[in-house]
Each structure stands twice: as C-alpha cells, then as structure tokens.
C-alpha cells in the first residue's frame, strides 16, 4: 500500500487537559486514488490531513507514505488550502514558480513549466496579475497550478472550494476531476460537502465527531465521467445521506 495509516490518533494538550481530535483511524490508500475525507466540522478531518501532510504528526499509531513514517512535510507532496495560500506580492507567474525555485530548476525551465500549468487552469491571460486582482475561484486555480507545477506524488486539499460560490465550485470540481484523471496524482481531499465527495472520490472516508473517527469507507461505484443529475449519482448520494442518518423517511412533503 502506498499510504498506510494504522490506529492513528491525535491528542492535543491544552491547559493541562487532553483533547482527542481523532482516534483509531486505519486506512490504506493506493497510488493514484482520489480519496475524500467527509464529515461534519470538528470531526478531525483537517487534523488528519495535516498529519498525513506532515505538518503536525500523529500522537499515537502511525502514518506511513511509501513505507516511510511521516514526520515532516515532504517536497514530494503539496497541500492546497481553503484560503489559497498565495503570496500576494508575487504575480500569478511567480506564485506558480514558487515551488520550482527551491528545486534548483533554471529560470527558463521554470517559466516553461509555470506557463504549461497556468494554461491548464485557464489563466494564461492573467500571468502578470497579482492575486488580489483575481476572483476567489481564479486564485484557487493559481494554487492548483502551483501545486501541479512541482509534479507532486500526492496532493492534499483542505476544503479547497469551501470559500467559493456554488457555480464556481462546480466548475472547479469539474476541472480538478479532469486534471486528476490526466495527471494521475494521488489526491486526498477534505470536504463537508456530500455531493462534492460523491462527484470526486474513488472512495469516500466518512468520519464522525466526538471523538473523530472513521465511520465508513464507501467505494464510489461511478465511472470517471460523472453527471450530478444522473440516477446512479443520486443513488450514491442517497447512500451517503443514509450513512449520516440524515435521510428522513417519514412524512416529508416534496414540492417540486
């Protein structure tokens, strides 16, 4: 297995008290899988993602990537954040080149690579713009291009589309899905949006809170081309609703 999480747990100590963010998490992920961590807020999704990305290691159990215990962030993996994490003083072009600079790649080469990914996310006309001049959706595209530019093995995303309006969000979901098929990256995405998880994931890891743990792992039986309104899509979505006990069978009046 590529990513191996065994009995992992994370406790925080605050004012002499112990708080368990998540516990007993075991999960194996294969190379090239698209995994969504889905659950209500506070169930430890971000904490688990941060542990996998090496920002804050687990306090019990273990997380191994490629056989090696995760202790600190690796340049092989990148993280995309909800609030983009772009450097406002750099242009789009320079932001995308950021990760390439520490890899000792010559200037011309950096430019070429950056151009390629800026084009992939459809921002070629905005290379010279600063992040503040772009909409939220465009900023997140820049951060996706920046992540892809370093050719990472794994991309971690923490509610990457959470701050966007519904239509922009769907557009970006379409894009990330097609990019993930094309680039064949392993992607771990945190979300609390059920439709997003069903639309994107190969497998959905359903988490619950107090304490955070895995409730279910659902393999999404859909093909790479997905339609949000298709019957099979809605079936899977219903299944997830059921797993969260959020489907009310009783007298609900539907007015359509």
């Amino acid at each position: 297995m590529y990513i191996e999480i065994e009995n992992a747990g994370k406790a925080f100590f605050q004012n002499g008290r112990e708080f368990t963010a998540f516990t007993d998490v075991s999960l194996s992920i294969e190379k090239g899988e698209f995994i969504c961590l889905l659950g209500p807020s506070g169930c430890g999704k971000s904490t688990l993602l941060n542990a996998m990305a090496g920002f804050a290691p687990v306090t019990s159990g273990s997380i191994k990537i490629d056989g090696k215990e995760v202790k600190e962030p690796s340049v092989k993996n990148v993280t995309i954040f909800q609030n983009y994490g772009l450097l406002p003083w750099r242009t789009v072009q320079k932001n995308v080149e950021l990760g390439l600079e520490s890899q000792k790649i010559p200037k011309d080469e950096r430019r070429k690579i950056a151009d390629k990914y800026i084009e992939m996310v459809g921002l070629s006309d905005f290379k010279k713009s600063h992040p503040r001049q772009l909409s939220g959706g465009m900023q997140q595209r820049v951060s996706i291009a920046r992540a892809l530019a370093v050719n990472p093995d794994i991309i971690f995303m923490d509610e990457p589309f959470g701050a966007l309006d519904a239509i922009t969000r769907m557009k970006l979901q379409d894009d990330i899905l097609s990019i993930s098929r094309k680039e064949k990256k392993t992607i771990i995405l945190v979300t609390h949006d059920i439709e997003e998880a069903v639309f994107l994931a190969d497998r959905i890891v359903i988490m619950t809170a107090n304490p955070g743990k895995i409730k279910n792992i659902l393999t999404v039986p859909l093909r790479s081309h997905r339609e949000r309104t298709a019957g099979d899509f809605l079936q899977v979505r219903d299944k997830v609703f059921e797993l969260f006990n959020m489907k009310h069978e009783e007298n609900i009046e539907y007015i359509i």
Partner: protein
Amino acid sequence: MKKLLSIKNIIISLLLLLGVWQFIYTLTDFSDALFPSPLQAFGALAEMVSNGILFTHIGASMYRFAVGYVSSVIIAVLLGLVLGRLPKVFQYINPAVQLLRPISPMAWMPFIVLWFGIGNIPAIVIIFISAFFPVLLSTVSAVNSIDPIYMKVSKSFGIKQPQIMWKVIFPAVFPQIANSIHLALGTAWVFLVAGEMTGTQSGLGYLVIDARNNLRADILFADIIVIGLIGLILDSLLKTAEKQILKAWGGAD
C-alpha cells in the same frame, strides 16, 4: 487634477501661515532682533543661499540623517525579523527594550559626546536611537502575527532558511512595517536638529545655536523654515516610495 488640488491646498495653507506670522509681527512690538518679519527671514534665507552657507549646513545634516536613519532602519528590521521568529529569546529582551524605549535619545547625549567626541557621530547616534525602537518593535509584532499559512506553504514547497526569511517572511510583513519606517522618519528628523545642537560645528541644528549666539533671529527663522521644508519633502518622498513599493506588492490591504 487631484495633484493640482493638493498643491493648491499646500500653497493656501503656507500663505495662511505667513499671514499669521505677519499679523503677530505687526500686532506685537518685539524688536526685530527678537521677532523678525517674514520678509526679514526670507532676506536672511536669500543671504545664506547666495553665500552658500545654507547648502553646507544642509549637506552636513543630510549626510548624518541618511547614515543614522538608514542604518537604524536596516538593523532594526533585520533584528526584528530574527527576534520575531524567536519568541522565546525575545521574551527576555522585550522588557529591556520597553525600559529603554521611552528614554529620550537626548538623555544619552552627554555620554555620546564623552564616548565618541564631537563631529558627525553624536547626531548620527541620536538619529539612530530615535528610529530604532519603533521599527524594531513593529517588525517583531508583524512577524509574530504573520499568517501561519505562509509558513505552511513554505514548508509544503520545501523553502528553507534563510530563503524563507527574504522570500516569504520579509515580504509578508513589509506592508505593516512600512508604516513604522515612515513614522520613524519624522521622529528621526525631529531629533536630528536636537542632536546637532550640541557636539557639532555644522548642520541645521548647529545653525540654530549659532544664530542665537549671534543674535540673528532672522537667520534662526530662516533656518526653521528650511528644517520644516526639508522634513516635509522627505516625508512626501517616502510616502511616494511607500506607495510605489506597496503597488509592486500587489496593492495594500
């Protein structure tokens, strides 16, 4: 258009000031040796311009100011960047800084003259001290409140020290410290004149003392006008530079 308007405002404001000055001059009956009219002061100014004395003094002052202010800002920012990343160290330094900060730089003057003699150094040291603490403290606090996402992004992309300092931390905090660098310019200029009133034989501050000793109130007033004007020009130059830099930063917050 906006620029023209603000120039108009400046001219009206300065004329008003001259008017008040002339008004007080005509209303009171101090002797001209004690309170000169604007005309007499401008006469003295013209005199100092034509014999070149003024430019010698301005040159001496600007040299001290540039050396003192620039070195102070550079050292304060560098130290602030490092201390901001070392809160465990700074907690032992901060109380001492808080103790030293409220002391007027002028209080050190006797020591400075004893240690460094007279000449350029005393004024430079005074300017250095006056700009140092505000810039240091604002840099430390800006680094402390830096958005943690910048550090995460740096780690994620393998940016290490010292690159992280000049590639990420400094640019991230710059908009916040720019303001204190700007304010420190005004403070430093105020203390330049004070610093030159003892320990030197040249400069706009020395000219104040020299004019007093020679009972030349007109020169004193002319000097005061020059001090004010240069302070104003320096301030607006820095304001323009600040705007340009912040624009390159992708716009201010």
